[in-house]
């Protein structure tokens, strides 16, 4: 297979990369564009560390060929903050201590961000399910759920 040109937006900016069609989105984000906030923790689409948002949906970027994102908009953890202002879920993570080693955190934030933008009065079970695909070995998840809960209850506003 020949290399192809991929044009897409990442965190609001246009990018053009020349890639092998089998290249994963996770590789393009990290290795070609240098957005190393997105992590990888398995080879089996199991850990969620590489979760990003594609057109608003949370997706594990190791499960998507980059070329499938032609003309789409991808947001990574680096895209959550605007001009130095953290997003509500980022601030809620700080207040609730919802991270420890921090390696799963970018993926967690992306899953939570997609969930929060859609959820209407979600239950605790739904909040837990929203991060079901993300493994955290440090926190035991409850502090992450508390952060999601605080944001869905409107305790944090966009700055």
């Amino acid at each position: 297979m020949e290399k192809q040109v991929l044009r897409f937006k990442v965190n609001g900016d246009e990018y053009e990369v020349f890639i092998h069609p089998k290249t994963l989105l996770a590789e393009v984000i990290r290795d070609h564009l240098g957005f190393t906030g997105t992590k990888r923790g398995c080879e089996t689409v199991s850990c969620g560390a590489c979760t990003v948002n594609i057109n608003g949906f949370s997706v594990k970027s190791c499960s998507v060929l980059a070329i499938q994102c032609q003309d789409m908009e991808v947001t990574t953890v680096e895209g959550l903050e605007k001009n130095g202002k953290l997003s509500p879920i980022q601030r809620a993570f700080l207040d609730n201590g919802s991270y420890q080693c921090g390696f799963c955190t970018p993926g967690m934030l992306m899953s939570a961000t997609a969930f929060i933008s859609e959820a209407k009065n979600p239950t605790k079970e739904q909040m837990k399910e929203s991060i079901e695909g993300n493994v955290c070995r440090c926190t035991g998840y409850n502090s992450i759920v508390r952060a999601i809960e605080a944001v869905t209850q409107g305790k944090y506003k966009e700055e």
Partner: protein
Amino acid sequence: MSHAKYSVINTHVHNIDGVAKVTGRATYTFDVKLPGMLYGKILRSPHPHAKIINIDTTRAMELPGVKIVVTGKDTLGIKQGIWRRYEELCDEQVLPLEKVRYIGEPVAAVAAVTEEIAEAALDLIDVEWEVLPAVYEPLEAIKKEAPTIHEGVERNVNVTRHIEWGDVDEAFEDADYIREDWFKCSGQAHMCMETRAAVSSFTPEGKLTVWASTQSAYYTQGLLAGVLGLREGDVRVLAPYVGGGFGGKFELDAAMFCSAVMSMKLFKPVKVVFSREEDFIASKRRTPMFYYVRTGIKKDGTFCARESRMFSNGGAYTGMGATALYLSGFFHSFPYKWRGYRYDGYRVYTNTLPSTSMRGFGAPQAMFCSEQQIDWICADLGLDPFEVRRKNGHTEGYEVPGQAFIASCGLEQCINEIEKWVKSKGKLPANRGIGISSCGFMSGGIFNWFDSPYSFSSAVVTINVDGTVELHVGCQDIGQGSNTTMAIIAAETLGVKVEDIRVHSGDTAHCPADLGAWGSRQTLMAGNAVKMACEDAKKQLLEFAYAEMGINIVYDLDIKDRWVHIVARPERGLPYGDLVKKALRAKDGQRIMGRGYYTPHRKGMISPAYSYMMQAVDAEVDPETGKIKIHEVMTAHDCGQPINQLGLVGQLEGAASMALGYAYLEDMPFEDGKMMNPNLVDYKVIKAPEMPEAGIIEIDTYEPEGPYGAKEAGEGLTNPTAAALGNAIYNAMGIQMKELPITPERVLKALREKKEAQK
């Protein structure tokens, strides 16, 4: 002892690395990319036990893009181990010369311009093997006729450990009731989110710089220097952010070693990152243990004696397993007073993945056996499990004979709180039960098997002209929040705010040596070093304050919230920033600098201080499927004075999730030495939907040896959970779970056996 009112300690402080972590700025070894960097991959043994007859690397070297292939012959062949003081326990060549001893053991390494080429080259390395007979279980490997795994090691016994106090036999004679049980405790993968990773860069002036995912930059520096024939000072180890450790990342690993060996030959940076599968099959695991436990007790519930024999599956090499052997035996006695106690532990080599330390350090296994057996004894004799634990539990001022002195102990309050909580739950529905388990844990080990000539912990603090503070520590933040804890202790001691402190850690070139993050040592040991360093700096500042303020020398001065003042008349003083400027001028422009250290002396055999806790697990069993649902976990916890409020909650909730995983989900089945589920699809860890509420009741105590009265939190709470779940199932279903993890199959088997016994 009364607690002082603190300005910073135990207040709501954000983790000082928090913004970096929630914005993607935190750069882990996994993210490091250097100009001209090559990518390394490791060829691993497909055999559990085999002689290496020949390795032919010709075809691999011919692959375009491959820069080097190395085998054991390209190394100094030094046998290494973290128990550096004891030559016989340094038994592991990271790239072995003569034979392999487990499936997954490194055999050769390749560096190439891309990871894909390096991976492809592995298939082109031709290894000629002579396969040897292998043995996988300790009780088989210890037999006379078993194959020899390490030359000269009789019956494959790697290390033994005997612990004894009191007249055990006489104490057993006094017992009215004696019970014996056998238990089988499983291994567990640390499963750090960041797999083992290292980037090594060797330059022509003979200096090696290594970014490593490590729990101890100092250990990594020392171990690498040893196997590479370099001076420690010529090896710089950087570990800015580490994606989890849990006891699995303070030995020398193949990512560190192979990247360094190849970089030294090529003078180019080389990066090696383990795949998740490699991390499962070739990173040492929690030690599997077989326990025989015999306990003697009086009718009134007074403990007389305990005698235990433990055989652990050591796997192919020693690693930290020798320490786990000792600590398991010690904490198996916890948290109770035994007139007579005897433990004999045997760590046995097998042809499996080596075992080592993991959060809890042998104690979760020990407690699974001990705390269940105590409940069964209570049932046998009609005694109250709370009352029996209260009656025999450690108390302040108790000495574990010849082993440990207990200066602070909140065990009784923990038991009282959990008893109240359990009783408040009332009668539970069918198939549902609450189980309890208590335990204690150390606040840093006092052992020096690494033979460090440095203090166990050190800190250097310097104060800039504007009053900001540079705190240099060797303790390692692996996510547990030690940088924040140290910043809190520094801010409290100096009388400034957390945002005034910049913590420098994870760099052997700029930070003082420290043994690192293991054995729950950093809050107490590094915390004391930081406190001492800050007290030193503060004393120098206050000397100038006395001169500047012209006050009676008998007055006490202090600094709080950046205000230097007379303690008895807090309104009289001057701003901290002004004082710093003047002090600097008076010292001919030298910055104020304080130094602190901690090395334990006369603190017994194990640790300077012990945390205590009791946990209750509320669980339900589906009698049709054997499936377990955890409803809630509640813990009463004595960690002395809490320092880092958010960090403490996070550590305790995290411990509960890891310990629940160990109790009923995380299984590592091996067949003929091969791990059957080395991926995150088949290896089940707790995920958000399974995680129950895990509440905490903090018990107020003060530990005189700890900084501001603090002691261990976060590791010890992995100890009680498996036993508490076992006891919950016993209370719900009347079945005794003697094997970990408590899987649905094991539950169903126990239910069937119970039914048959009733017939």
